[in-house]
């Protein structure tokens, strides 16, 4: 290693005469935008007429249409089970320890299975505090917790309702969300 810093000079692209006049470049831009405009207008018109057409927009009309979440996206946590149906979690508290938001609360107890030794008596995640960093998934030595449920709609009307219990995280019990009787646009 010589220790010398090599400098690479990046030349700014030189503008030719046509580009400096700007009018032609502006016309080129107008051509692009007009193409999009008329193509999309045509597609929307076809759609409105009930004919088959490519979508004229890439917009997802979210509350009506389901949200499209990438497969790798970190979504709501899920606790996994062994083949015999008991939870994989061995209550090692690694996830609780690494969690930067301190939103995992585990109470451990002795497991009847001698090979497992320890298990969680209760396991709660407060999704109202979680920052969805995924550290808990990384830390877990047992592959007991994952963030691949695909669910992104977790809102609730109170802080207490944002806390998910072990049974709910394992999918044994649906999350009971006491929806207010008032008009809730997403309730349906």
């Amino acid at each position, binding site marked *: 290693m010589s220790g010398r810093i090599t400098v690479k000079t990046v030349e700014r692209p030189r503008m030719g005469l046509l580009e400096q006049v700007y009018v032609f470049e*502006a016309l080129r831009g107008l051509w692009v935008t007009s193409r*999009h405009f008329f193509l999309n207008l045509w597609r929307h018109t076809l759609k409105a007429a009930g004919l088959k057409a490519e979508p004229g*927009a890439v917009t997802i009309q979210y509350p009506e249409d389901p949200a499209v979440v990438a497969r790798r996206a970190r979504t709501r946590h899920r606790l996994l089970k062994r083949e015999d149906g008991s939870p994989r979690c061995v209550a090692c508290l690694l996830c609780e320890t690494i969690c930067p938001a301190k939103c995992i609360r585990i109470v451990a107890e002795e497991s009847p299975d001698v090979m497992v030794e320890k298990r969680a008596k209760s396991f709660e995640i407060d999704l109202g505090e979680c920052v969805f960093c995924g550290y808990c998934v990384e830390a877990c030595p047992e592959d007991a917790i994952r963030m691949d449920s695909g669910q992104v709609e977790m809102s609730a009307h109170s802080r207490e309702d944002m806390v998910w219990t072990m049974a709910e995280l394992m999918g044994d019990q649906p999350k009971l969300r006491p929806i207010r009787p008032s008009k809730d646009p997403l309730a349906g």
Partner: protein
Amino acid sequence: MSSFWVDALWSAVKVLGAVGFGMGLAGILSWVERKQSALLQDRIGANRADILGYRLLGLFHMLADPIKLLVKEDFVPPQGQRFWHDLAPGLSLACATLCLAALPFGDSFELFGRSWSLRPLPMGAGVVFVLASLSVGVHGIAMAGWSSASAYSLLGGLRGAAQMISYEVAMLSILAAPLFLYGTLDLAEAVRWQARTLWGFLPAWGLLLQPLAFLLFLTAGAAETKRAPFDLPEGEAEIVGYFVEYSGMKFAMFMTTDFVESVVLAGLTTALFLGGWHLPGLGLLGLPQPLFALAGVGVFAAKVVAVLWLLMQIRWTLPRFRYDQLLALGWKGLLPLSLLNFAATAWVVWGWTR
């Protein structure tokens, strides 16, 4: 009824029609702006406002916005000067609206033994009137900037005033060439001049005879009416502009001013460069004269809408200019070019008519 009262009534109808046309178009433009930008960016655009579940392509946003703005608080900064603060948007809007009445919507026609003009304010110096009225609008901007008692508003107002005055100079010298060609300052006369044909088939529109002036005029006009890519005085969200201290309906008035000025600019372009109410081939239909004149109004309106579409498309295509680029373009680009164009035009016209 005496002739005076008929005249007065007819004038009132025309002026109201012109203002209604401009204001209505300005309202629709706020919808067009969103939908057009959405279409060309592969989006859908505002479509949530509904009445009884009907959304009608988001057209109800045109109603929802004014209602929202009307019921908002009208805030005047405590150190600001309320009188001038209130006056500024009104002055801007009034000046822009006044221009609408000077546009030549149609030719005159004979009916019931008298002549009916379709121009709201028939004037010999229509071009000068419109330009003068647009420049008085600068006062609204400077006033808004000053009376808000905010350094940002003040700087925004100064920027706006400097830009508008610079481009006004350019605008006048750009228009000198076509007006010299038409030999008139009267907008309707200019339109009538363009009714002739070149070599028997081409309409003698300003667009074909003065293409450079057309291009320069659109550019200067976009800057004069503070539309993008020259919307630095406003810079709706990024650069703080002169109406940062405005809220509610007074803010809406500034925005409306913008749209009305766009309509005026489109009207001027139509009258001076696109042959106004003329459409080649319309005379072949053999309409009776009053209907023909009214069809001319329709043609004029259609051309205005087309120019507005183009302005909107430009607004969503080009990035905004930097302030020094803006002034450089005005003083070093448009002004010399327009003077050259004027000299060339004068030379050709002199040679032609000698």
